[in-house]
């Protein structure tokens, strides 16, 4: 079984984002970018499936700017076998919407015929949490979202999902799309020799036109602004003073 893993290049999760003062967006020039943390978990899971003899090949895919090559090389260094980059934008500030990404991924899935697609549950930049579900819909496949445990057995995968109020286990017929949550695994670091080897692994470059997909946005961004900031608070010197403050403010 081939496993397809979509990965996204996003602002590093530790970076405090800066909103441009003219309201046109978030400043991404000269900012550290990394693989979306949820996608690292998806790559790790795919590699573990391969190590367990359940997957034959792991293909990493990214849709975005040409620099997403680095993100794919990271996936290759972790253990993916080959990569496909779909260059859909020249400008790092243009985020390709989940619907367009899902259409491109669906076209790739039709070519590659994977038995399983593992996605991160959401990208930490647009916080949409939609691409995996949209991809499953477009392919007419089953989906299991927010996975914290995946067991592949024959023609099905049993997935424990993180839902409101606890956990839910479902079984989904393969091929399927599974989106992964934080607690699924601890992604490995790529070793230096593996980073070197990754440079020789195949990375194929494509465009949305190759798949006949229009990436024009459906949502026009009118404005991006800073959230209202909170006014500075006060520090109490003791528990008694804190209690007095809270009672004085009427919050308890």
């Amino acid at each position, binding site marked *: 079984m081939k496993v397809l893993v979509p990965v996204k290049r996003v602002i590093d999760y530790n970076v405090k*984002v800066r909103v441009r003062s003219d309201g046109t967006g*978030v400043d991404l020039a000269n900012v550290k970018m990394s693989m979306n943390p949820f996608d690292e978990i998806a790559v790790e899971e795919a590699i573990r499936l391969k190590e367990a003899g359940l997957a034959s090949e792991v293909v990493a895919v990214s849709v975005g700017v040409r620099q997403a090559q680095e993100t794919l090389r990271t996936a290759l260094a972790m253990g993916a076998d080959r990569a496909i980059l779909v260059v859909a934008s020249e400008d790092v500030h243009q985020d390709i919407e989940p619907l367009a990404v*899902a259409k491109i991924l669906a076209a790739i899935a039709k070519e590659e015929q994977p038995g399983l697609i593992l996605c991160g549950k959401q990208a930490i930049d647009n916080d*949409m949490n939609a691409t995996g579900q949209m991809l499953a819909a477009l392919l007419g496949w089953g989906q299991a979202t927010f996975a914290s445990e995946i067991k592949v057995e024959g023609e099905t995968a049993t997935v424990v999902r993180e839902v*409101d109020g606890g956990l839910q286990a479902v*079984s989904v017929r393969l091929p399927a799309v599974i989106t992964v949550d934080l607690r699924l695994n601890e992604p490995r670091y790529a070793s230096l020799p593996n980073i070197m080897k990754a440079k020789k692994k195949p990375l194929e470059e494509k465009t949305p036109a190759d798949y006949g997909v229009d990436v024009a946005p*459906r949502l*026009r961004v009118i404005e991006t602004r800073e959230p209202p900031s909170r006014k500075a608070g*006060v520090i109490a010197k003791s528990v008694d003073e804190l209690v007095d403050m809270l009672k004085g*403010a009427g919050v308890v």
Partner: protein
Amino acid sequence: MAVLLIADVTNDGLGFDATAKAVTAARALGDVTVLVMGPRAAAEEAATIEGVAKVLLAEDAALGHRLAEPAADLVVALAPGFTHVVAPATADAKNILPRVAALLDVMVISDVTAIRDAETFERPIYAGNALQTVQSSDRIKVLTIRTAGFDAAPRGGSAPIEAAPGVSDPGLSQWVEDRVAKSGRPELTSARVVVSGGRGIGSKEGFQIVEKLADRLGAAVGASRAAVDAGYAPNDWQVGQTGKVVAPDLYVALGISGAIQHLAGMKDSKTIVAINKDPEAPIFQVADYGLVADLFEAVPALTEKL
């Protein structure tokens, strides 16, 4: 304009709070028809929410566990009669609505915090560090509502209940079991007061001081990711970008440093109180009231004095 609102249904029945808050948001867009995929009792309760024009009840066994595939098929079948398909941004809705949107060939707009007009919506991006206003050109707008930003519509309505069309289960996935964390405390996302613990709590046993203060305040208990990963607290207590988003009247953060990902889940709380032994902890930058102290002395003392 007509809105189809997917009710939040849990194993216990209607998720009233989430549904009623979404009704408040949806009313601004037009007549609200609520779809209840669940038992009749949940539909009867949904019908009492003020502002609901009609309730559609789908009692099919195929929808029993709200699996995305049959649920999305039903919503897609109903969608052509509506300009908007809306749901509170729960785990269920996040599972189902993007699937609906793709089947309708429209974008989904996740976690809407404000509705400007019928096609213009505001939503947080980058873990709540930026607010984006987007205008949709799609013929049907599919959106999930971040309920923390809306007041719950009151009871007092009496909408008629009709049967929804039947669905056939595409058989792509099957429910196996639920592992529900039982709690006698208020539900985290709707609680007026939330007391959360972080890595500073140090152990599962240590979480008792968090729970005692929560019980003293009639609060729900939350946790940071660090506390959940360390096994101090169950995962459904997690507050943050990847957990739940809360906006209670009072949020008490105990032993939580205040990472960007945690702040994303609680920085819209009305009043934030932080107790941490590290005076440099970023949580103090958003806290209205802070105390630099050892938790194991300060929290029991605070619990006693309140």
